């Protein structure tokens, strides 16, 4: 057991090291949500009613998008590239258990997710008047929605990595999926302003529920009534995200490929 956790810890440390050394991915991953907050807060200076600024709403979508990009997008793009390069095949030739590779990716995603979210909150609170949650309850909700959300995104990202045939094609396959989800899930617009059918499609995927759970953390309780279900529906948030964790895990275990297709 200790040997196994040591392997996972070492693999995670290696992944983080690799991430930190690729400057583009560090800058893009860390700075993107901050830049977006800056743009949106500069465009929409007004409030969305009840003295709540748009920034307060928008930051929930940005946190969720950040977790989606770290968990889902980065893995679904990075893993096919590593598969093409033969890194996965080489690992399969060693005695290291398969799950250690996934554990390493998960450790990296969690570390980056925490760092990126903290940076986003700090910038938004310092420069754009974001009000941070004031009760322990809300911080607890923040924690479990984020952890469940990023876990679902990570597992789906690993599963989705088998869709792209080549490393070069991966980002073309993954980016539109993420972008469409962001538009229909209430990241860039107030969710209830979207057409009803779009809301229903979005409700099938995790991002909408991550945003909704985070609104329960950052918006006043008076806004709960404005949600499509008339409340924050935290139970449903947990259920849908939990279901996507299970779906992602099953897909990982059944469809993951260690070698590229032309390689047999």
């Amino acid at each position, binding site marked *: 057991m200790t040997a196994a956790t*040591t*392997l996972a810890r*070492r693999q995670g440390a*290696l992944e983080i*090291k*690799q991430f930190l*050394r*690729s400057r583009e991915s560090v800058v893009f991953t860390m700075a993107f949500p901050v830049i977006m907050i800056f743009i949106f807060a500069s465009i929409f200076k007004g409030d969305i009613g009840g003295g709540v600024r748009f920034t307060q709403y928008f930051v929930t979508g940005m946190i969720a998008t950040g977790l989606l990009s770290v968990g889902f997008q980065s893995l679904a793009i990075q893993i096919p590239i590593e598969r093409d*390069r*033969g*890194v*996965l*095949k*080489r690992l*399969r*030739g*060693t*005695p*290291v*258990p398969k799950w250690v590779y996934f554990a390493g990716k998960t450790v990296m995603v969690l570390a980056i997710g925490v760092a990126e979210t903290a940076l986003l909150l700090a910038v938004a609170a310092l420069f754009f008047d974001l009000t941070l949650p004031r009760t322990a309850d809300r911080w607890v909700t923040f924690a479990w929605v984020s952890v469940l959300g990023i876990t679902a995104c990570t597992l789906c990202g690993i599963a989705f990595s088998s869709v792209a045939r080549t490393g070069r094609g991966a980002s073309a396959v993954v980016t539109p999926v993420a972008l469409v989800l962001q538009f229909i899930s209430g990241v860039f617009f107030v969710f209830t302003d979207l057409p009803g059918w779009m809301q229903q499609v979005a409700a099938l995927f995790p991002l909408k529920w991550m945003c909704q759970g985070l609104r329960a953390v950052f918006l006043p309780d008076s806004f709960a009534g404005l949600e499509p279900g008339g409340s924050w529906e935290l139970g449903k948030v947990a259920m849908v995200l939990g279901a996507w964790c299970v779906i992602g895990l099953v897909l990982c275990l059944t469809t993951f490929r260690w*070698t590229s297709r032309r*390689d*047999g």
Partner: protein
Amino acid sequence: MDDEPAIVARNLRKSYGGVAAVDGVDLTVRRGEVFALLGPNGAGKTTTVEILEGYRRRDAGEVSVLGTDPARADAAWRARIGIVLQSTGEFEDLTVREVVHHFAGFYPAPYPPDDVIAQVGLAGKANARTHGLSGGQRRRLDVALGIIGRPELLFLDEPTTGFDPEARVEFWDLIRGLIALGTTIVLTTHYLDEAEALADRIAVIAGGRVAAVASPADLGGRRNAPATVAWRSPEGEPRSEQTATPTALVAELSARLGGEIPGLTVTRPTLEDVYLTMIGSGGRA
């Protein structure tokens, strides 16, 4: 148990889309020997070794590698073999030392990583990022990762493809160092000189079958093949004669020509001659 062969394969078969890539291969690799699979591209060498390495499933046949069926390989078995794949897997932003140390952690009894780095000739590059290595240096890193776990059996799949002649000779010296440690080595190559330089025995593979297995000197029966004796007549005309008894012919010529024979050569078919004959006849020579 050390008399048990490292690898036994019987009637190995594998098809892709109805085309047989491996069409009934039989192999026995003894412990401690260097065994080369020599054949042209597409002959089935890589498919064969990837079945032995546990990467591919066979359609039919019996295989035992270090006493285990590779299709049911576990971590303990993987710890006893080392694999240098045909394609290199890069770790871009990590240094040579970081990668080798990391892989050492996968094995129960690895060699000291810094010793291995020195052994493959990368001591001067230990702190260099792997994306900056030359092709030959990457291949050395591949070998380092292949041997770090102290393998009993090492697979080398076309290790010097794309090397210039000087780098190839340097790489051979590295492999000879491993041979000296007693590691059993299975080498695939399409270079005759490589098989001849390194292998104890060569299996020529063509068309998914083993055409012949022998030591480099014996391959295709060339040790006993008729020799060609060539010389120049006193008038300076080139002469040659094929004979099963070249020594007798040379003695007779020497007597006839009064001592020295002008322009004398005695040759047997080269490895290249017998190899080209074998692969030319569809592997059924």
